[in-house]
């Protein structure tokens, strides 16, 4: 059996074949369509998520899942909402793993490495096993950002940990029993708020907002009826959309609000 899945108005993105394959959720076998993501397959099998699911878009980090494939000793990992099932996989979700998180007073915390060292001294137990990097579903080089934090390089740690979605899988594997992602978040907060130079155009924009530059436009939108809103949102003429793969210099022709 095969169906075509229409996406958008007129494009056919993929031919979806729905053969059923066995998967094992926490050891129990279910036969599920092989085109589903792990999350949908679990729902297909009868699971209802009240935890372990959030955005369904690969961003919130609620659905971290570990699995093994037949005849493969490796631990594999994926976000349940993003990873398509594979025949014979054994999986369990690890939506949450206990992780030490130190409360700190942002205002009172100086932008120095020692502030983080004091909040998370277990940082120095890292053995560079790299298990964290290997398990990260976002391909964040966790071991490297931990190394950067240990030497007080907040800029580098911020850059390296930027894609982290706080799923916590790294902490589940850590030899040193630390919660890498909470430590990196503290670093990014301090770096972003206290070290990184402020963007001047942002301040200008904030002033513009305060001065009411967008007030009229917003008022109009608030008054508009559903049909108008739909038209504004969908129509190519009313809304200028940045083309895929556009150059960095791309600007809309109507730049009244820039």
């Amino acid at each position: 059996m095969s169906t075509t899945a229409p996406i958008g108005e007129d494009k056919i993105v993929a031919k979806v074949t729905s053969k059923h394959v066995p998967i094992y959720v926490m050891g129990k076998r279910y036969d599920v369509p092989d085109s589903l993501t792990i999350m949908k397959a679990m729902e297909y099998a009868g699971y209802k998520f009240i935890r372990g699911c959030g955005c369904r878009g690969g961003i919130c980090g609620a659905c971290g899942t570990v699995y093994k494939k037949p005849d493969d000793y490796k631990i594999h990992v994926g976000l349940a909402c993003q990873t398509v099932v594979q025949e014979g996989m054994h999986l369990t979700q690890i939506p949450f793993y206990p992780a030490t998180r130190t409360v700190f007073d942002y205002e009172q915390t100086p932008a120095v490495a020692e502030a983080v060292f004091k909040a998370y001294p277990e940082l120095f137990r890292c053995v560079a096993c790299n298990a964290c990097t290997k398990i990260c579903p976002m391909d964040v080089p966790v071991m490297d950002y931990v190394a950067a934090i240990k030497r007080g390089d907040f800029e580098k740690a911020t850059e390296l940990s930027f894609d982290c979605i706080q799923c916590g899988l790294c902490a589940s594997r850590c030899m040193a029993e630390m919660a890498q992602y909470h430590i990196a978040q503290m670093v990014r907060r301090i770096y972003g708020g206290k070290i990184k130079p402020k963007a001047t155009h942002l301040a200008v924009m904030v002033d513009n907002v305060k001065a009411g530059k967008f007030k009229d436009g917003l008022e109009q939108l608030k008054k508009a009826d559903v049909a108008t809103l739909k038209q504004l949102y969908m129509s190519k003429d009313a809304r200028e959309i940045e083309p895929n793969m556009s150059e960095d210099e791309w600007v809309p022709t109507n730049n009244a609000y820039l």
Partner: protein
Amino acid sequence: MKVSYYPGCTLKTKARNLEDTAIGALAVLGVELVELPRWNCCGAVTSLAQDDLLHMLAPVRDLIRAKEQGSDKLVTICSMCYNTLARANLLMRNDAEKRDALNRFMDEEPDYAGEVEVIHLLNFIRDEVGWDKLRAAVRRPLTGLRVAPYYGCTLVRPAEVAIEPAVDATVFEKFIEALGAQLVHNPGAFDCCGSYQILSHPKQALAASAELLGKAKNKGADVLALSCPLCDYNLGKRQNELVADHGLESKLPTIYFTQLLAVALGLDSSLCHFELNHEGTRSLLEERNLISTVAV
């Protein structure tokens, strides 16, 4: 000449005075220290158990980074990093079974078999710069400054990684003499300052520190030269406690060997970050007219 360089975590924070002076002074001597583009903490101490390979991963990864960079030499400055990297390197060279186990575990890294040579900066200066060239490069000889060398543990023990055999090591002594300073024989040159036990058993570590500083002091040293940020912490930064509670009769400033080098080569003293040193170091050098007095 360019050479790969492993800094270590502390040189990026508390011991910037050690790193900045090394890089600045070596540049004057025609050597560019090229920091590894990617590195992790070396682990500071070595695993001493035959069945604990886990704690060998960190230093071996750093050696792999040097190999990846195409280097066959890796220079380090911190004594602890030197010791840890050099011992991990020996393991990878000499123990085929453990080498295989480590390479297999790090399946994401290229294999490593000890191709890189780990060199402490003192030995690098001895071999690649040479005492004659060093002497010739000195702009401001440290005349009259009585300097005691302090090797500590990790530059000389265990024997298989010693920068020179401990009983007749002379590299630090020759270095000090080449800078025009007056060498003070230091009977405590190879004593232990208590190392990381400063955190868990501070009383014992401070007692050991006080005793060894006393030995250099008794020989009339003006300053103790060292190459390890942890020694500098125990012996320098905690020195007030040594005097107050541990029987050290009077203070003895401490200084990194690279700072002595930078001063002797006539580099700007702002590079030396004396604010990170023992409180008496800057004033000692000012008194001797080796650095100019800065108005604060």
